[in-house]
């Protein structure tokens, strides 16, 4: 957005927004959102883009990967509304079950939030940081600008096909090169996102943490290709200086809440599913960083500890068995132990030849989870151990 557009948009704003803007200007970050967008003429390039996204959205709506839980979806939708204010009616949030860090917003208002993102952020403010950034792209119609950039036209045409399927069939790289927003767009979306967060009452300092946390995870992977962990990196180049910029912006927009409790409460009962999906990625080094971070912050500690045990057990490198056992035992000793923690203790004890420990733990597992999918199989282990 250039200066003139910014001014004319500001001029069209209501008094309240203007007042806010004066305050924000004083803080060194000014932004006035445009008014709601009308549906573009279908004969235009932008209209074509919308139609494609509408088609994509129709198929998304039918997808079994979309979470139907009303409470969770309306929670995410509400955050979008707080951030998008006037644009709230145009934003439609979908939570998609995919264990990668990603969110994206299409120009027609379809906002996809992947469960891998919800698993990674620590509070509502961090989620709002990512959503605010995406809404920033939307408000500035960056994807339309990309469409009109002749150099990227053929690449974008390719990506329009792949949009929403990022991650499938190793298409990430294609999508990354074609749909990546430029540095300027990224910086602008970051700035707007921070402003929207601030307006909505969130602590802007949380936005920088999103990136530092993610970078830690990515660095853990040997010869790591960030796009494989976080599709968001594929479409949003994220150099470390973005983190520094965001820290700088946060200083000029102080205050606000982090929303730790609300976020924990709304996501708690999905964590088990999301962690299962996470572990199955087989990216053990990354998962360990993620889980240890949550454990250190005291987030769902017993569950995170159990899954860290799983990651160690499945990785199976030297010393992993002992680490896994320690985590399973810690999880089992907690106030609300996951039944599977006893399964883990039993499996490892069995492998280590600790018969009585194995029998005790596996028996306890079956007592707690008699209908577990592997119950019949665990019984054969018990029969062997007691024979």
């Amino acid at each position: 957005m250039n200066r003139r557009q910014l001014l004319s948009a500001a001029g069209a704003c209501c008094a309240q927004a203007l007042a806010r803007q004066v305050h924000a200007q004083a803080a060194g970050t000014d932004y006035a959102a445009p008014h709601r967008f009308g549906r573009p003429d279908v004969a235009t390039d932008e209209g074509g883009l919308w139609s494609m996204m509408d088609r994509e959205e129709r198929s998304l709506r039918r997808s079994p990967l979309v979470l139907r839980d009303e409470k969770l979806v309306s929670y995410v939708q509400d955050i979008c509304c707080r951030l998008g204010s006037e644009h709230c009616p145009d934003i439609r949030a979908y939570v998609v079950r995919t264990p990668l860090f990603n969110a994206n917003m299409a120009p027609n208002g379809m906002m996809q939030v992947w469960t891998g993102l919800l698993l990674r952020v620590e509070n509502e403010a961090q989620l709002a940081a990512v959503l605010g950034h995406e809404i920033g792209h939307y408000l500035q119609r960056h994807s339309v600008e990309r469409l009109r950039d002749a150099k990227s036209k053929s690449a974008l045409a390719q990506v329009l096909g792949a949009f929403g399927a990022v991650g499938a069939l190793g298409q990430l790289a294609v999508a990354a090169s074609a749909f990546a927003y430029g540095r300027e767009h990224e910086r602008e979306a970051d700035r707007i996102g921070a402003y929207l967060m601030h307006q909505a009452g969130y602590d802007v300092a949380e936005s920088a943490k999103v990136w530092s946390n993610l970078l830690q995870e990515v660095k853990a992977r040997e010869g790591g290709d960030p796009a494989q962990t976080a599709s968001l990196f594929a479409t949003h180049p994220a150099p470390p200086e973005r983190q520094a910029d965001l820290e700088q912006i946060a200083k000029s927009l102080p205050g606000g809440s982090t929303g730790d409790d609300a976020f924990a409460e709304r996501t708690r009962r999905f964590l088990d599913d999301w962690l299962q999906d996470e572990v199955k990625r087989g990216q053990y080094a990354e998962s360990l960083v993620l889980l240890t971070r949550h454990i250190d912050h005291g987030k769902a500690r017993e569950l995170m500890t159990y899954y860290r045990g799983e990651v160690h057990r499945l990785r199976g490198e030297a010393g992993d068995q002992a680490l896994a056992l320690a985590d399973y035992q810690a999880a089992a000793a907690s106030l609300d132990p996951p039944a599977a923690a006893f399964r883990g203790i039993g499996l490892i004890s069995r492998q280590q030849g600790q018969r009585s420990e194995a029998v005790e733990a596996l028996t306890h597992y079956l007592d707690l989870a008699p209908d577990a999918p592997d119950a019949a199989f665990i019984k054969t282990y018990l029969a062997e151990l007691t024979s």
Partner: protein
Amino acid sequence: MNKLLCAILILALSACATVKKIESGDNLVGERLSVTLDGAWNRLDFPSIKPAQIWTMEGVTIDEFLIYSGIHDGQVMHPEGPIGGKQRNFAFHSAMQTEEIVSMFEGVLCRDNSTFKLLKLEPYQFGGKKGFRFEYERIRKVDNVQLRGVGFGAVDRGELFAMIYDAPRLTFFPRYQSKVEAIARTAVIKAS
């Protein structure tokens, strides 16, 4: 959009795949696994799928029958290509426990960001050896189709023998499940 991706997938597969008919009767897969078929199957042979073979009734974008014969210690499962992509490689190790082998298959089947849910794991005599059988459901990420699957396996002399079949849960899986179960029952892991 999904149709487009399917088309790309089919193109990608057909570019390097040849289809061969597997006839009814006794068939040797690899060196030591024999199965008896009641009716023909189609085998797709493309380099990237080694060490597995892929068979299908309806076409590989619909149903998939993966057969592993004599996977040796340290061997990587589906190392390259459309199924492997750039995701993590999973390798078989002779010392793996049954639950670890099943986890390995889970990982392989999730590598394209599909979901996997284990429904059942039970003991099973496979190929004349003490083995396992598992059932699962999966949502295939590429086309959002809900699949049901069943797998069988056993380790003999440090080598893994297994078969996994999955297909759309409402139509094709029920149609072919009994065929697949019957094939698993005919499996014999030979001494040499």
